[in-house]
């Protein structure tokens, strides 16, 4: 019942949303990030693209495809669960769903690039770094996001950004990706 309600509200809201990026813009932004990753990482074989569920995992796979096309290297991807590492245990009203993390091990001497769809407060990224460190000690951790909407609450910044999007805190950003949402690729902005 609850899920149906949520879907209903989401589809109603969709009509009042403003499209910020379409499939073409997302494709170009991710291709550019892939080029930047290649440029910034001389040892591409040591790179792991670790996506945050759900959409970060899909973005990581797409980046890996672009990198494979351009650099002819099969870059490794993984999944990093942040739900178990969140810092709002005492206050949360809704329980976040947990997913199994999957990372190629060992992480020593590797570069882990955390990949998410939207970068906002930075708390998810902090949780992701915490999760990664429970697997080992990578040589470095970088951060890639399709959209950076600002309003950081922690000293975190992205190394690779698809689009910088100044927003008000009350506004909402929604990323839709075909493989995850069964909807055309798009980034939407909702007022209120």
């Amino acid at each position: 019942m609850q899920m149906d309600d949520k879907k209903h509200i989401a589809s109603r809201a969709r009509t009042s949303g403003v499209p910020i990026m379409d499939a073409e813009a997302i494709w170009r932004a991710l291709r550019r990030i892939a080029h930047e990753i290649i440029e910034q990482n001389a040892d591409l074989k040591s790179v792991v693209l670790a996506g945050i569920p759900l959409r970060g995992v899909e973005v990581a796979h797409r980046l890996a495809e672009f990198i494979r096309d351009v650099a002819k290297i099969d870059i490794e991807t993984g999944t990093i669960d942040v739900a178990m590492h969140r810092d709002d245990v005492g206050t949360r009203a809704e329980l976040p769903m947990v997913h199994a993390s999957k990372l190629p091990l060992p992480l020593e001497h590797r570069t882990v690039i955390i990949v998410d769809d939207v970068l906002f407060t930075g708390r998810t990224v902090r949780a992701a770094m915490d999760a990664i460190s429970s697997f080992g000690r990578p040589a470095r951790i970088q951060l890639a996001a399709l959209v950076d909407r600002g309003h950081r609450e922690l000293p975190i910044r992205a190394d690779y950004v698809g689009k910088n999007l100044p927003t008000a805190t009350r506004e909402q950003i929604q990323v839709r990706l075909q493989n995850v949402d069964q909807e055309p690729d798009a980034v939407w902005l909702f007022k209120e």
Partner: protein
Amino acid sequence: MRSGCLKNEMNWNRKDLLGLRELSADEINFILETADAFKQVGTREIKKVPALRGKTLVNFFVEPSTRTRTSFELAAFRLSADVINISATTSSLTKGETLKDTARNLEALHADILVLRHSSAGAAQFLAQRLKSSVINAGDGAHEHPTQGLLDMYTIREKRGRIDNLHVVIVGDILFSRVARSNIFGLTKLGARVTLVGPSTLVPREFEKLGVTVSNQIDKVLPDADVVNLLRIQHERQRKEYFPGISEYTTLFGLTKERAKLLKPNCLVMHPGPINRGVEIDSEVADGLQSVILDQVTNGLAVRMAVLYLCGGIAA
């Protein structure tokens, strides 16, 4: 497609886990999927996550149990919760305090999660209705032992890839077994075919009302089994009029080396432990290739982490 394996549908809205009888198949599956995520934590260099940091769990065991208590304890540690253990001998129950008073005292200490093992059926439900804390039933009399049922199902699903349409044979003292009851409720909901085997005094025909088959001829049932779950013969609970005697039991119902030859090669052999070697199962079988008894122990930890997280993860 490639992201299709990741789901984001929360199928849980309970503060307590009292039994599997009242859960839906969706809820059971959701616990098992959540346990997958927590099982992975056990393979990390640092086997601990802050998911329940600052929460207090009380292991309140009015009946002795080392295995279940330590499994809950380790599960809580891995979720960063603080743990207090209270056993029957150390509690004031021996001084005449009622269960409710003891529990209210525990709540006054701001315990968030109460894991209860009790000799009376319904004890967990009694407390769940009266306390704000989450109550997890770790075995109440002959009623239910839901986390054991869940870890058995998790192990079957892990080893065989599914539960639906598998034939699960449960052997032993069904009448007094909460493990059997939780397994029966859970397995039938997930579509397994269940056969109960044992002396007719301990496996009454009445159980057929639960949608299972009852048999007292183990040699006829074993060749068709996908899973054999052997229950421990609980010497401490047996009354003479029900029980044929140990050596007679082994002859009639024990999974001996010879009898194990009747099993299909991919049939799983399970046991909730502790094992009575040479009674319900021969050593060669318990330690054999078909045995998943130690996997059950490992999986118990993951399942209990999932249950503690789902029931106790929300701010009260």
